[in-house]
């Protein structure tokens, strides 16, 4: 009967191994130490230290080390958060989008909460060829729309990436601009236009 019982033991140990994945543990008491080590300042309240499941998992793992089960869990949960534009129109004003891409302020304790948040795209991505001060934390998005066209699938994919990048790349470093309400729906549309509009400097 030993051969019959083994799978049960295996299943039990697998369960024990996979359980901590979903517990809110990061490292020994790191979350508690973070709570003790910070204090609220202006708009940056202490609630910002509370991790959601994606943040907890992506603290423990990177995209490369994330177990497959957790990866698909993040992807599915994140996909469910993505709201398409309410009027079905993906593209706004590329000039407004360029300004959002250039603006790095928003949500810092030192920022004016009355001003619109920036997207700070240039911190991490190359976009317009004319802007040389771009970062390299993310891939180059030069000629984004020119290379990809404006098929419904392509527009939906780019919207998803802006809204919640975790839906496509679990534990991506990219902020969830829509899901976390960093940018408004209109701002997201404007950034979309900056990426896709043939007249946008991104596609020159």
């Amino acid at each position: 009967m030993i051969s019959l019982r083994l799978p049960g033991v295996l299943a039990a140990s697998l369960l024990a191994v996979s359980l901590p994945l979903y517990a809110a543990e990061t490292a020994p008491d790191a979350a508690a130490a973070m709570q003790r080590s910070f204090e609220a300042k202006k708009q940056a309240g202490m609630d910002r230290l509370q991790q959601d499941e994606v943040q907890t998992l992506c603290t423990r793992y990177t995209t490369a080390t994330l177990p497959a089960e957790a990866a698909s869990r993040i992807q599915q949960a994140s996909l469910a958060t993505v709201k398409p534009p309410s009027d079905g129109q993906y593209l706004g004003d590329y000039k407004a989008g360029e300004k959002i891409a250039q603006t790095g302020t928003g949500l810092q304790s030192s920022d004016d909460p009355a001003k619109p948040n920036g997207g700070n795209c240039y911190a991490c991505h190359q976009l317009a060829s004319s802007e040389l001060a771009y970062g390299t934390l993310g891939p180059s998005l030069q000629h984004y729309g020119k290379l990809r066209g404006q098929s419904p699938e392509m527009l939906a994919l780019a919207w998803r990436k802006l809204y919640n990048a975790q839906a496509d790349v679990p534990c991506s470093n990219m902020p969830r601009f829509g899901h976390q309400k960093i940018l408004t729906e209109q701002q997201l549309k404007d950034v979309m236009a900056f990426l896709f509009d043939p007249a946008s400097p991104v596609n020159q």
Partner: protein
Amino acid sequence: MNTPRATRRALLVGSLLLLAGAAQAETSTQDAIAEYREMFGDDNPAELWQSRGEALWHTARGPKQANLTACDLGLGPGVIEGAYAQLPRWFDDTQQVQDLETRLVSCVTTLQGIPREEFLKVKFGDGEKKSELEALTAYVVAASRGKPIALPMQHPAEQAAYALGKAAFSYRAGPHDFACATCHGDAGKRIRLQELPQLTTAAGAREAYTHWPAYRISQGELRTMEWRLQDCFRQQRLPQLKFGSEVAIGLTMFLAKNAEGGTLAAPGIKR
């Protein structure tokens, strides 16, 4: 302050600004800073903080009218040469792991009797509002120039501080999901034109840690490691990192340990 040296400094700062303006597109920030360092030679504005710190160190002050020459920074009372290279470390008298800045607070409060809140009223200087802590820090740090970073790391609390620092480094939180590791976890990356050291490696940690504290050109102030860390968290959109907190000490320990063997060149000059 109208010495020839100060005048030269003003001219150099002016020409740097011109240079930065004219060459915005072609010259990277790194090139501009390298050029700035070259113009200064050994003449680092941080010297102003160092000499102010040296005076503070030797002046009898506070209710106890004592100077700080009995301050034990880990190598015995009054020994400042090489002390910074072995911090943070465990101190028996305070029963804490302390970085240089929290240790200086201990010395000021116990030896001079100055209340912590009073001494820390200006933690980080701002123009006319001068920080005594920054001046003392600069003075002590400069006495470790050329020394290799070597931490004791024997006490369990020191190892625990390192482990916490390591965990805090990867802690993703806030509206942007940022952690220290988001920007400083990979090699060869940059934000805009600013190159980012990979702080988890010896090379990256040394490059950064050996030059902090530093004179910050853009602010015209000498900035300490505690300042640097709390400013990183501000940019991460997180709340205010408390001075001398577990996470502040832990992260300093994590960076210092990763930078071990590196030769200290602080106070440095940063953008």
